């Protein structure tokens, strides 16, 4: 497993941490999809190859020993697919928008919780916000803190899902 990662911070310590954290991110997401969605995700080796057409973004804030934002981006169609699998009934991408957003927000929440449980020192010392979900592509997310950023690209039912951890401190 060698998920691609984008980071702006040089140095061996950061590289080692990033390697551990991107593996933890992937393992956390894989377990959540396996157990709660009932369908696996696979790694997309190159994040640059992930299409930029994702239009649904769920975010969970982290505060404490790790401050940052974990986000999951996917298409509306993928969000509908996730909601359908979780509910065990068809959810059309043009209908039941609230269920799609709810499902993706909950997935993001569980991935964040599962991620911090896998990283030493975070389980007890890091709190999660309730999820926020944004629809549409025409937005920019700005942080006032210097950011380090990890990305892991996944495929769900052949469509891209991008995990991003913005690290603020």
């Amino acid at each position, binding site marked *: 497993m060698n998920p691609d990662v984008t980071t702006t911070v040089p140095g061996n310590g950061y590289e080692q941490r990033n390697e551990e954290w991107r593996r933890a991110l992937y393992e956390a997401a894989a377990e959540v999809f396996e157990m709660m969605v009932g369908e696996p995700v696979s790694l997309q080796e190159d994040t640059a190859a992930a299409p930029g057409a994702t239009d649904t973004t769920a975010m969970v804030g982290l505060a404490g020993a790790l401050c940052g934002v974990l986000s999951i981006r996917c298409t509306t169609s993928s969000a509908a697919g996730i909601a359908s699998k979780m509910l065990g009934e068809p959810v059309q991408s043009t209908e039941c928008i609230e269920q799609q957003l709810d*499902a993706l927000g*909950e997935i993001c*929440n569980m991935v964040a*919780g599962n991620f911090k*449980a896998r990283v030493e020192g975070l389980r007890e010392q890091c709190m999660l916000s309730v999820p926020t979900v944004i629809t549409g592509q025409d937005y920019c997310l700005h942080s006032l803190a210097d950011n380090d950023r990890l990305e892991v690209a996944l495929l769900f039912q052949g469509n891209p899902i991008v995990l991003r951890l913005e690290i603020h401190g």
Partner: protein
Amino acid sequence: MANIRALIVDDSSVMRKIVERCLRQAGITLSAVFEASNGAEGLAVIGNNPVDLILSDINMPVMDGLEFVTNLQASANAKGVPIVMITTEGGEAQVTQALTLGAKGYIRKPFTPDQVRQHVVPLLRAD
């Protein structure tokens, strides 16, 4: 385990449906399922509806699960009712706090239907 009246408290409607499905898959016959999206709603529901089982998330807006469990102590309808926390927040401190406040168990998200069965069924049998 027939005719169980369950209260499921979670800010995610999708998660509430999954929990209900897991309870049914565990062989629990539910005569009523009450839903609430936060602790305050949960208190309002239980004020008017006796239940046999409460499952609650911890991390919720308005009133979180720990405050909900604390406030349940004043509810006559919650007296002796087993409470199980279902949460992504798996820190020992929170788990210990929930158990101290009266919860009988906790389930970490993500979970399997079998894990729900293992945690919930013994509580109903003991009851």
